[in-house]
C-alpha cells in the first residue's frame, strides 16, 4: 500500500482535521522512514488510537467455611461462569503397576452418570441446559472444568457435586469406555507422530512412570472394574490435592457457597503418592527407529528448569529466542525461512513435576532431514557458546509482554490460569507482576542460563525414519 493513498478521503466534512492528523503522522513516518524500511511500526504502536490503560485483572483468594481455597476473578461481560479444578498428583504417572491406564479411564468415566442419574439422563440434562462438565488426566494431575450459564448455575454446581462424590461407574458404561480407550491405544500406533512420542518417552524416562504410555496398557485396561475405579476416586480426588479457579459472572458469596457445596464433601486426604525425580540422562545420544516415511520425524531434549526456579524466566527468554513462538526464532529462521527444509521447527520448556526439559522437534523429508539436524546442533552450540544479543532479548521480552493480554480471551482460559497460579505458587499478584518479571531479566542473565542449560551437554535425539 502506498503511504499517500491511505489518507485519501472522500468525506469532505472531516477532511481538514484528518489532513492535519495525516500530515503529522505522515511527517513522522517519513522522517523515521529515511532510516527504516519505509514505514515505522513503532510509531504506529506508540501513537495507537486504541489502547486500554486501566485493564484490571483482580484476583482474590477465597476460603470457604469448610476451608476450601480458590482463586476468583469476577468477569461479568457475559452471563457465564467457568470453574477449573485440578487434583495434584492424581494423574497417570501414579497408576500402579498392573493398573496402567486407570487415570484416563477414570477421567473418561466421571461424566458417565452420577448419583440417581444414569449416563443418558445425566448427559441429557447437560445438553438441555448447556452445561459442560469434563475431566482429563495428564502425567501429573487429574483436572476438570465446568462451564455454565449463570441462570443454570445452581443445577450445574449440583451436578458437579454429584459427579465428584457419587460417580456411578455403571458396568455397561465402564465396558464401553474401556473399548474406546483400547481403540485410542490402537490408533496411536497408526500415526508416526504419536509412535515417536511413545518411543521418546521410553528413551528419556526409562523406568520412571513418565516412560510409560500414559494412556495405559491394553492388558491392564481390560481388567479395570468398579471397585478399582471407586478406590482411585476415593484416594486421589481429595481436598489435600485440590486446586480451584473460578471466573465469570458469579459473586463472591455465590462462589464461596459453591466451594462448600461442590467440594466440601470430598475426603480430606487420600493415599499419599509421590514419584522420584525422572533422572533423565542427557548425554547427546541419538536413537533412530527405522521407518520408511514420507518425512522423518525427530524430538530432541535436554535438561530444563522448574517453574519456580530463579533460572526460569531467563531460560524462558533464551528458549523464545532459540525455538519459541512465531516464525522468528533462530531455528525457524534458519531451517524454515532461510533454507526451506521443514514446515515447522520448535522448542519449548516442558514442565512436569518430576522432570523439567527443553524440548524441541521437527519433521522433514529424508533428503533434508540431516541438514535440519545439523542446524539444530549448530544453533544449540551457538546458544551455549555465543549466547544471545541485547536486540534478541529485547524482541523476546517485547513478545512475551505484548502477548500477555491474549490469555484473557475466554473465561475458561481465565479460570485455568487461576488454577495454574496456585499450582505453581506464583502468588495472588502474579497477573499484575508477571510482565515486570519478564522485563527485569537482563541479557546477562539470559546468557548465563543459556550457558548453563545449553552448555550442559548435547540434547538426546530420538527419531523415526531412515
Amino acid at each position, binding site marked *: *500500500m*502506498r503511504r*499517500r493513498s*491511505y*489518507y*485519501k478521503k472522500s468525506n469532505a466534512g472531516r477532511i481538514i482535521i484528518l489532513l492535519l492528523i495525516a500530515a503529522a503522522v505522515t511527517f513522522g513516518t517519513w522522517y523515521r522512514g529515511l532510516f527504516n*524500511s*519505509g*514505514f515505522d*511500526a513503532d510509531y*504506529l504502536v506508540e501513537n*495507537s*488510537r*486504541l*489502547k*486500554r490503560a486501566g485493564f484490571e485483572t483482580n484476583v482474590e483468594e477465597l476460603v470457604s467455611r469448610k476451608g476450601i481455597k480458590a482463586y476468583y476473578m469476577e468477569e461479568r461481560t*457475559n*452471563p*457465564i461462569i467457568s470453574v477449573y479444578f485440578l487434583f495434584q498428583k492424581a494423574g497417570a504417572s501414579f497408576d500402579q503397576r498392573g493398573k496402567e491406564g486407570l487415570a484416563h479411564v477414570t477421567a473418561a468415566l466421571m461424566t458417565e452418570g452420577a448419583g440417581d442419574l444414569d449416563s*443418558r439422563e445425566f448427559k441429557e440434562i447437560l*445438553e*438441555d*441446559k*448447556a452445561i*459442560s462438565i469434563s475431566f482429563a488426566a495428564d502425567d501429573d494431575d487429574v483436572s476438570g472444568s465446568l462451564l455454565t*450459564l449463570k441462570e443454570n448455575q445452581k443445577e450445574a454446581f449440583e451436578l458437579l457435586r454429584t459427579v465428584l462424590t457419587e460417580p456411578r461407574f455403571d458396568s455397561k458404561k465402564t465396558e464401553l469406555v474401556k*473399548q*474406546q480407550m483400547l*481403540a485410542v491405544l*490402537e490408533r496411536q*500406533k*497408526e*500415526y508416526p*507422530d504419536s509412535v515417536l512420542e511413545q518411543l521418546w518417552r521410553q528413551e528419556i524416562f526409562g523406568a520412571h512412570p513418565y516412560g510409560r504410555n500414559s494412556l495405559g496398557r491394553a492388558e491392564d485396561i481390560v481388567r479395570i472394574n468398579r471397585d478399582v475405579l471407586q478406590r482411585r476416586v476415593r484416594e486421589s480426588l481429595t481436598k489435600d490435592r485440590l486446586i480451584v479457579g473460578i471466573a465469570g459472572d458469579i459473586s463472591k458469596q455465590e462462589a464461596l457457597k459453591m466451594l462448600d457445596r461442590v467440594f466440601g464433601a470430598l475426603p480430606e486426604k487420600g493415599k499419599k503418592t509421590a514419584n522420584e525425580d525422572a533422572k533423565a540422562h542427557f548425554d547427546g545420544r541419538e536413537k533412530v527407529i527405522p521407518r520408511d*516415511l*514420507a*518425512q522423518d*520425524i525427530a524430538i530432541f531434549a535436554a535438561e530444563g528448569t522448574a517453574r519456580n526456579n530463579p533460572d526460569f524466566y531467563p531460560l524462558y527468554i533464551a528458549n523464545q529466542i532459540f525455538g519459541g*513462538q*512465531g*516464525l*522468528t526464532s533462530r531455528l525457524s529462521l534458519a531451517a524454515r*525461512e532461510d533454507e*526451506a*527444509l*521443514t*514446515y*515447522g521447527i520448535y522448542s519449548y520448556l516442558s514442565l512436569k513435576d518430576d522432570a523439567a526439559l527443553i524440548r524441541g522437534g521437527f*519433521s522433514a*523429508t529424508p533428503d*533434508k532431514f540431516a541438514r535440519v539436524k545439523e542446524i539444530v546442533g549448530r544453533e544449540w552450540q551457538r546458544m551455549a557458546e555465543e549466547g544471545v544479543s541485547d536486540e534478541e532479548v529485547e*524482541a523476546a521480552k*517485547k*513478545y*512475551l509482554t*505484548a502477548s500477555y*493480554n*491474549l490469555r484473557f*480471551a*475466554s473465561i475458561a482460559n481465565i479460570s485455568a490460569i487461576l488454577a495454574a497460579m496456585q499450582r505453581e505458587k506464583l502468588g495472588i499478584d502474579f497477573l499484575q507482576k508477571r510482565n515486570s518479571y519478564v522485563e527485569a531479566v537482563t541479557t546477562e542473565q539470559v546468557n548465563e542460563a543459556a550457558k548453563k542449560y545449553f552448555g550442559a551437554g548435547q540434547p538426546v535425539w530420538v527419531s523415526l525414519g531412515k
Partner: protein
Amino acid sequence: MGKFLRLLAFLWLAGTGAAEARLFEAEEFFLDNGLRVVVIPNHKAPIVQQMVWYNVGSVDEAPGKGGVAHLLEHLMFRGTEEVKDGEFNRLITENGGSMNAFTSRDVTVYHEFMDVSRLELAMFLEADRMSGLKITPETFEKERDIVFQERMQVVENNPTAYFSEVMQRNLWQEHPYARPITGTPEEILQLSQKDAEDFYGRYYAPNNAILILSGDITTAEAKDLAEKYFGGAERKETGKRIEFPEFKGFRSSKTLMKMPQINVSRMVRYYVVPSYAQDKNQALALTVLAKYLGDGDTSQLYRRLVEDEKSAVSVAAGYDLASRSYAVFVLSALTDHPEVFEKDLDEALREAIAAFDAEALQKAKKQMLAGIIYLKDNPADAAEIAGSLLSGGMSLEDVKNYDKAIEAVSLTDVRKAAAQLLNGGYVQGFLLPEDKD
C-alpha cells in the same frame, strides 16, 4: 485448513433459552473501495482478532495449477513493496500477536490476534499486503519448498489423510471440489512465480474481501481505522470465480481400502446436499437433522449403534452449511465389526428418521440454542464463526438471527430433508487394517 471445517461444531454446542439471545452483536459497513467490514465488539479484555477473508479458494485455481491458492497464502508472509521479507513475521511476533492463515476450497483467510494497542500495526500490514505483495524468485522457491514439506507432513505422513483425499475424489467426481486443497505434490513443484502473481492479481482486492474486527473496538473506531488503513486500496475488477457444475447423474460408489498402518476400521459416508447458499430452508433442516442423528453421546445413532448394539466404538453425523457450492452430509464411525456395520447403520438411520417427531424436533432445537451465548465469549472464535458463515452465503442479519432461523425449522422441513437424504446417492468408504495372514 482443517480449522475451517471445525467451525460449525460450535453451532452445535448447546445454548441459552433466553429469547433475546443472539449469536453476537455485530455491525457491518462497506468502504468506498468495496471492502466489507464486520465489527463484533467484545470489551472483556483489550484484545482484538483481525481477520481478512478473501472470497477465493483452491477451487478457483485453473486446471493444472492445483495448490496455487495455498502457496500464495504462504507468499503473503514474504514481503511487499513496503515491508521486506521476514518483517511481517517479526513485527507481529514482537508485538505479541499470534498470526496464521488458512486456505480452504472456498476462501483464503489471514488473521492476527493482538493486544488492542497493536491493532493498527496489524491493520497496516494486512492492508499493505492486500495490494502491495512482492514475490521474488528467491522467496517463491523457498515457500514452494516449505509448502511441499507441509504437504508431506500433513497428508503423506498421515494414513487417514490419504484415505480422505481418495474419498473426496470419489465424492466430487467432475466437480472442482474433488481436487486437494494443497494441490498434489507434483502440482506444487510445477507452480511458477507467475502463477502465484496471476492468482494474486486476479483475486486479491478490497472488493473481494471481508475484514472482521472482533474484540475491544467500537464500530465508530473500526470505521475510522478501516478507512485509514484499507481506504487507499484500490477497487479492481476481480477475476471471475469458478462456476460450479451442476451435479447430474451422481455416481454412488463404495470403496474399500486396506493399509498396513491401520489398526482400527473406519467408515465414512458422504451425501452431497444443498448448502445454505443454495437452499436456506433445507440447509437449516439438515443442521437440525445432523444434531438429532449424530451430534454427541445423546444422539440417536450413538445411542443405538455404540451404546445398545455395540456395533461401533464411535459414530457421528455432521453437516457444514457454509459452502459456495454444494455441501456434504457426513456419517462417520470407528467400528470393530466392519463386515456388519453398514447394515446396522442403514437400519439405525432408517428407524431414527422414522421416529423423528415434534418432541425430538423441540429437543434438538433446544439443545442447539441453549449455549449459543458461549459464542460471545472468545473474540477470536466469534470472528471465525462470523467469517465462515458470511463466506458461506449468509447475510449478517442471517448470522445474527441464526437462533430464530433454527427455531423456525418445522417438522415437515426436517422430514423432507431426511427423505431426500435417504433417497439420494452417496459415496461410502471403509478404511481397514490389512489382512493378518
